[in-house]
């Protein structure tokens, strides 16, 4: 009986963790949908966004370390601190700028290349941004606080204690993440499906040349999509940064988003959420039920294996577009 109640708690937490993964996966989906680019840099984008946010919030001097090393100065901060809301806004602007630069310097020159080449380019981009983030804001671990609540939710604990005789642990941050993710997904789905730009975005994903030929500006679409993806990365960065600090490993959550992506389908926005939920529950439940028998720490690979099993039955993921096979 206890086991069952525990399992329920594990499932609930799995769902919420899944939402956190989905936040990262969403960025991947957007870019893939719009350009057929598998953007490996999405994780680093989240890290970069979070670093920038903290940097702006705390009034850090960008490139301080480099300037100090070259000129022997002692710059560190401007000595002011920016309110969270404004800082988020400014960071969003930086992300748009970044999207613009990425299009200008990278994507534009790779129109029409094979997907794997574009994928590689985004890995190059990931390296670059990782280095740039460190040079700009320093490699130390930063604390991110934009006022999101964190820690166990008392009301749920008390309520469940009353019902089950065991108080469930639900993190308040996760509840927030769920709400925000739901909002994001709804907005993005509406955008992709029902607007002209959304349709253009899907057209670009199918055939760059044809899109060009009907007058869709790849440049505009890409800047737009990368900006949105940058914003999604910022949201993911805020959530994960609040959870475990802003530092290099933040970029590695991309690896947790990949199975989500695979399971949900690379091109489906709702897929990212459903995939996230399945992966979250799956890995947590497996760790809870089977983990103890085989030594634990199974989550990293189990997520992938779970996604793999789904794929064998649906090679395009649960909600991915059917892979068109014709001759």
């Amino acid at each position: 009986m206890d086991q069952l109640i525990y399992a329920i708690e594990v499932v609930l937490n799995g769902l919420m963790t899944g939402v956190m993964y989905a936040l990262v996966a969403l960025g991947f989906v957007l870019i893939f949908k719009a350009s057929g680019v598998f953007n490996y840099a999405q994780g680093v984008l989240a890290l970069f966004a979070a670093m920038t946010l903290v940097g702006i919030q705390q009034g850090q001097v960008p490139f301080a370390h480099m300037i100090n090393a070259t000129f022997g100065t002692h710059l560190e901060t401007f000595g002011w601190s920016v309110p969270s809301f404004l800082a988020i806004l400014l960071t969003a602007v930086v992300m748009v700028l970044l999207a613009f630069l990425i299009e200008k310097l990278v994507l534009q020159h790779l129109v029409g290349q094979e997907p794997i080449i574009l994928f590689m380019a985004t890995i190059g981009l990931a390296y670059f941004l990782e280095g740039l983030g460190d040079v700009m804001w320093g490699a130390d671990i930063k604390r991110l606080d934009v006022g999101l609540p964190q820690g166990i939710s008392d009301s749920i604990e008390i309520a469940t204690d009353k019902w089950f005789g065991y108080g469930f642990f639900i993190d308040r941050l996760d509840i927030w993440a769920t709400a925000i993710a739901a909002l994001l997904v709804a907005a993005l789905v509406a955008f992709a499906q029902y607007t002209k730009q959304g349709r253009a975005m899907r057209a670009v994903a199918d055939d760059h040349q044809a899109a060009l030929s009907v007058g869709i500006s790849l440049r505009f679409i890409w800047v737009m999509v990368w900006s949105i993806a940058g914003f999604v990365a910022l949201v993911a960065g805020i959530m994960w940064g609040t959870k475990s600090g802003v530092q290099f490993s933040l970029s590695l959550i991309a690896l947790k988003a990949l199975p989500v992506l695979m399971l949900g389908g690379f091109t489906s926005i709702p897929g990212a959420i459903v995939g996230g939920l399945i992966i979250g529950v799956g890995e947590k439940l497996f760790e809870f039920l089977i983990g103890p028998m085989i030594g634990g720490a199974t989550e990293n690979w189990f997520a992938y294996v779970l996604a793999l099993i789904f794929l064998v039955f649906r090679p395009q993921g649960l909600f991915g577009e059917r892979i068109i096979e014709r001759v």
Partner: protein
Amino acid sequence: MFYREAGDFKTSYRSDGQTFPIKLDRWGYYAVLVVAFGIIPFIINDYWASAVLVPFLIYAIAALGLNILTGYAGQVSLGTGGFMAVGAYAVYKLMTAFPDVSIVIHIVLAGGVTAIVGMLFGLPSLRIKGFYLAVATLAAQFFLVWLFNKVPWFYNYSASGQINSPERTVLGWAVTGPATSAPAKYLICLCFAFVLAWVARNLTRGMLGRKWMAIRDMDIAAEIIGVNPLTAKLSAFAISSFFIGIAGALLFSVYLGAAEVGEAFGINKSFLVLFMIIIGGLGSIFGSFAGAAFMVLLPVMLKNLLVGSLGWPTDLSAHFELMIVGALIVFFLIVEPHGLARLWALTKEKLRLWPFPH
């Protein structure tokens, strides 16, 4: 004008099928072999062996392997690190279980073991394609690393889970273990790289290679003209893994000497080797070597430049190194998406026309 094929007539299909049909290329190739086997072993020192040449050769083997799978057969894999780990752990178990058998045999067997594992993880490729498959191969990566970390049998129950390669000799020369000299390390890797490159070349120029390329270019059409996708894909996985397994075995036994799976064979390895083949050129033997050379040399050179010559603090230069490597990768892809090999071929094509274009 200096580089031309005119006057190089072929009188048989056999001579038309040779690896370097142009005379100048052939001489260049012989020259490289002479330098590699005849000169470098006498002048190599520990630094060059450990920092540059040995990793270059080992990664070249891994890149050849991945290139067979990704470049020739079109199946993108991110499981390279995991498969290298299989090679490493296989050779470790073999070395410690049968100390009297030659290490060369162990390394080849380790490749064989990896081939079997590779085939197993290649099975989903029959259904799953493209990036879905690439991500799916990460399952192999993570699972294998977890397995080697978790099951003490693989690391002979050592307290920390590290594996150490004991000393083994070939023809009386130590090739593994601390006492190995730089030339010995270099030569054993060179021999493996040479033979494997030759095997790769043979496999890719014949029927098997064509089957792979057909699957890569258009799998449905390939199936309709008579390629059995099952055997084509699985053979690509097997042979690719064989190469990668050998690279993993060499990496552990000859180069590192000790390894911990998550650290030495993590996902970064998978990406590194993928980089090599893309920068070098997908579907090109030469490209595998060029890419490996590029990715091994670049950081060393950058480091020497930034820290050694410019005297920057190491952290700044490490960050800049990341930025430069990233930027260079993007730059190369923009200049020539088909890699160094294609760049080289284009240069030759231009040279042929030079100095009279068109």
